[in-house]
């Protein structure tokens, strides 16, 4: 094999002679390298370039870069005039929304929802006594406990209708997270309304119910605005 042919095959020989070359080709190259100091030296230089390339030092950007990045992210997720700016990624917005926007955190809602489940289970299993008062969470749902409740419910139903019509096209993880959050709010609402039914004049409980309706409205409003 001539020098020109060996030189043009050197990279393939170094990177993948066992994959790209036949045994015969490899043998010819190795025989040539044994007898040709120039090609042998060139092969060594290529090897050293390749080895040195794996060990190049890491460079460090300016210390101001993180400041610029964090500022850019803050302006990306900030609200303007009460509206949420659309981001390129639905999941990025969704994660931000879950962590920043709402009055109740997921753990708080989860705790309230879990308490509602315990109360329901407790009633059926008798752990609250032989003849407990009937637990009418459904009743708590239908009776109006706040003067403005009719209007609130109508608004929420309209928003939910719009969101449900779009939900099928969402990323499955976002849809699951959204439904989880909505279920938690609804379970918490059931519980708080049940308690309010026991004492309709309890102002704190009235405020909690209003806050939960507001939470639900905000969630649906923000999702609706993004027009996914």
């Amino acid at each position, binding site marked *: 094999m001539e020098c020109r042919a060996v*030189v043009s095959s050197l990279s*393939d020989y170094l990177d993948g002679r066992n994959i790209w070359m036949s045994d015969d080709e490899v043998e010819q190259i190795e025989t040539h390298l044994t007898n040709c100091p120039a090609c042998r030296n060139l092969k060594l230089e290529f090897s050293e370039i390749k080895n040195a*390339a794996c060990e190049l030092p890491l460079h460090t950007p300016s210390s101001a870069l993180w400041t610029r990045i964090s500022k*850019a992210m803050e302006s990306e997720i900030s609200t303007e005039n009460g509206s949420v700016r659309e*981001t390129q990624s639905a999941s990025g917005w969704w994660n931000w929304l879950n962590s*920043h926007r709402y009055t109740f955190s997921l753990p708080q809602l989860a705790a309230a929802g879990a308490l509602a489940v315990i109360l329901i289970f407790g009633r059926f299993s008798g752990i609250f006594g032989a003849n407990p008062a009937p637990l009418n969470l459904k009743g708590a749902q239908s009776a109006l406990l706040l003067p403005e409740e009719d209007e609130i419910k109508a608004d929420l139903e309209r928003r939910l209708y719009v969101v449900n019509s779009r939900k099928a096209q969402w990323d499955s993880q976002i849809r699951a997270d959204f439904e989880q959050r909505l279920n938690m709010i609804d379970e918490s609402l059931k519980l708080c309304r049940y308690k309010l039914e026991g004492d309709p004049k309890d102002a704190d409980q009235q405020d909690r119910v209003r806050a939960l309706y507001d939470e639900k409205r905000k969630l649906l409003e923000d999702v609706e605005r993004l027009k996914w």
Partner: protein
Amino acid sequence: MTTDGTNNVAPDSLSDYELAQASARGDMQAFETVYKRHHRRVYSLCLRMVANATEAEDLTQEVFIQLFRKIGSFRGESAFTTWLHRLTVNHVLMHFRKRGVRLEKTTEEGEIGEIQDFLQAATERPRFVDRIALDKAISELPPGYRTVFVLHDVEGFEHEEVADMLGVSVGTSKSQLHKARMRLRELLTKKTDTKKETKKKEKKK
């Protein structure tokens, strides 16, 4: 895991996956830890591909903003570094496309003219690969050669991956890499010769 007494986990002790999950929940401290762990690698990759520090910083900024948007979708099937790596490369390649940089352009450089003269010179020159000089030489490569060399030799992508990312054939990727190595060899040799000449002149004085 360590805690700081308030049931909050110190971010530095978390895995990349855990930091990604925390970042996705809006934890900026976790995301800053991600940045501190990986920013040099991202910046170095950008710098070697574009050979311009200002441009590399802008690209690094864009990559991390994009990362923040997408970090919730990291499921841990691959290593976080691999995932971030791919994100960085794709972003830089998109940048090249927007600028109209043609990476697949071949040039006459790297073609051997008088093979015997070339090899004769190769016999005479000592081995020379200085990593700092190599880094500088990479920045002097034409964009197409530089991109393939950085992706294959520096970053460790296989030819099939490089070809897929660049939208070229495996054969083109191999050919560009070979020419890049030949060109680097020439650049490094010139630097070595220049140093030798400078030393000779200094001795005469």
